[in-house]
């Protein structure tokens, strides 16, 4: 009996912490669950598409798969910044839809205790994010709302 209780206890703890990939875009730190991340690529040739909103940068050919690419800065209504060597495309899979997001730089993968996350105050709410959390080192991470990304 006591054994199972311990196991349950561990599971509960594990459920609360999840692995997140953190990245920056326009000096904000974002986190996205690693469950949604397929891979990170750099230096990819993006083929622009006509007649789409400016935040859709175009499509890339990822080993034969055609994947649309969205610029996080433009999506959040921030000014466009030329892509540099630290610019990355994070390929996400959300509800079996694959999409790439262009971010300024990728930081790290870390375990984050999601139970500590709090909703973002309504007046400061950013598009595409649902929760925020300050880490031990004082940085504030905004969690990406993946469903909102594919909602166009």
């Amino acid at each position: 009996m006591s054994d199972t209780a311990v196991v349950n206890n561990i599971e509960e703890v594990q459920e609360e912490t999840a692995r997140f990939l953190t990245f920056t875009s326009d000096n904000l730190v974002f986190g996205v669950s690693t469950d949604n991340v397929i891979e990170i690529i750099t230096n990819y040739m993006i083929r622009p598409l006509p007649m789409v909103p400016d935040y859709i940068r175009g499509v890339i050919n990822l080993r034969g798969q055609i994947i649309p690419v969205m610029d996080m800065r433009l999506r959040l209504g921030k000014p466009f910044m030329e892509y540099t060597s630290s610019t990355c495309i994070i390929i996400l899979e959300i509800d079996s839809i694959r999409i790439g997001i262009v971010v300024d730089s990728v930081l790290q993968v870390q375990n984050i205790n999601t139970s500590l996350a709090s909703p973002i105050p309504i007046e400061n709410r950013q598009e595409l994010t649902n929760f925020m959390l300050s880490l031990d080192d004082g940085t504030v991470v905004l969690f990406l709302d993946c469903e909102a990304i594919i909602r166009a």
Partner: protein
Amino acid sequence: MDNTTDSLLETFLFETNSLLEQLDERLINAEKAGSFTEDDVNEIFRSMHTIKGSSAMLEFHSLMEVSHHIEDLFFYIRENGMDALDDEQKSDLFDLMFKSMDRLRDDIVRVENSQPLDADITDFINEINGFLKRIQKAGEAGVSASSLTASGGNLSPGIQYKTDAPYLLQVFFEPDCGMENLRSFMLVTALEEKDLSFQFFPEDVETNSQTKTIIAENGFILAFASQEDAESAIRVLKNTSNIHTYELIPNATEAQKSETSPTDTEHEKSPQTAAAAGTQPSGASATLPSHAKQSLISVNLSKLDKLMAVVGEIVITESMVIASPELQNVKLDNFLKSARQLRKLTDDLQDIAMSLRIVSVSSVFQKMNRIVRDMKKTLNKDVRLTIIGEDTEVDKTIVDSISDPIMHIVRNSMDHGIEDDVQDRLDAGKDAQAEIILTAKHTGSEVIISVEDDGKGMDTAAILAKANRAGLLTKPEEEYSRKEILSLLMLPGFSTNSEVTEFSGRGVGLDVVRKNVEAIGGVISITSEKGKGSCTTLKLPLTLAIVDGMEISIGGNIFTIPIANIRQSFKATNEDIILDASGHEIIKCMDEFFPIVRIRDLFQMQDGFTDLSEGIIMWVEASDKSYCIFVDQLIGEQQVVVKPFPPYLNNFNIKRSGISGCTVLGDGNISIILDVANMYTAAQEMF
């Protein structure tokens, strides 16, 4: 449902559908000939038996009942020959058969959609039985000797069997051995292995466990056409366990018949042998030489799609490897040799993968036979359908999506095209029987399907007046050319028939047809001459997966235009441009004027030529739209594998902006495939 039942069901549906399709074809041909041939009767009997067996196994009772009764009916016809029926009965028989086919097909559709089957089939069964009784009565009056339910010899009453085979073997199993029906069935299997042809009663020993009491009481009856067969069967019986007694009884009715007409019996025996083989579907293909066994497997279409996608990848990757920049300016003899070999193999692989998806259009064409037949009766018009080139092969996806459009066009021809009154035809010096010609043929990269009728043709004045009333005209009436008037027919909400008939004229007609055809990259056009008839032509690509494309570049970006849409490309100078009142550019080409669409402006691109003399003009055409586009340069012709855009991009209505998909080039870059028809619409909306 577990997996086994699922796959059983899938097999059942596939098998039954193809059987019904074959039967339909047979029925149509037989009706044309006015009678069933011996082969037809056997085939129908055999198919019904198969359907009955498999639906009994899956417990679809109504399907089983209907097919069972048709089987009975054809059993009678097989025994007595079609000649026993008079013309009226034959035509009734055809009607009944078509009705039964529809009935079975409806049931199959219900099974497919997992709806409950119609349990109330007594009316229909009665109809079949009634017909059977009618022809039996007529048959008995004519040929007194043949009888359907004769209990031969001194058999106990209560067992019903129908045969006029001369040798009957009555087998009794040991009392209380149990499972008589299964023992009988094993006996049947054992005899089949000896290649004997025979019939057995009760017929449903395999499926119906109730038969065991009948067998226990009355014995199991085997009927043989010849004495040798019966004797070899007796040898088998001697080696079978649990058999109590057996008795060879001459069939009284048959003996009498052979006395009266000895020449007839010889003649009748051969069909019987073939027919008896028909009762065992497994053996049938082996014994009938006309049905050589083809080894076919059915494959899920999505698997073929995946295969095609992988093959496309291989083709692209191969050219990426061979054209790799690291290998430029390096001389590698062996590498080039192997690369050539690889290219040849991938080409072969691509051809084979493509051919897997290619099927003939005959399935669609054969369906039209049925439609023409039904409409002929309802509309009381005498029409024959001539089919040319039904062996033409096209991609499966295309065949599937042209079925409805063609059906619609044929219905239109039947309903509106062909004259209502035969006298009109005679007055015009035409045959009393109208003709609809359905043609399919290959021309290089596309397939052309046309539906032609020799009816009254289209009245352009009436079309114009009607379009005017419907408010469909965009310019003054007198400015419409003949071709433009005919294309008005394909606008939404246009139907020339003021009365809505059962078959066509609901106002959703040719516009839907056009939409369907254009959705698969086809082009539809109508030509018609008043009094002589009309012709609707569909130009379709052979496959959707691979397109012959022309690569062009605009401001460093590469686009692909399907070759099929390109009419001509030429150089022009700024002086050739004419501006219309609102400032749109127009250019003259082959004595006609066409608007110019600058793709750079349409797609709001940063780079690209603006000076007409620097770039090149391309005259493109798609369905009724014909115009010129201005591009930077032509790069070359290439076969490309079409990739649809990721579904996420549909949020932005990307298709409406005139791009239909993309493709990966040899160097890994992406080229966008332009959709000529939608591009023009997009340009018009913009300017």
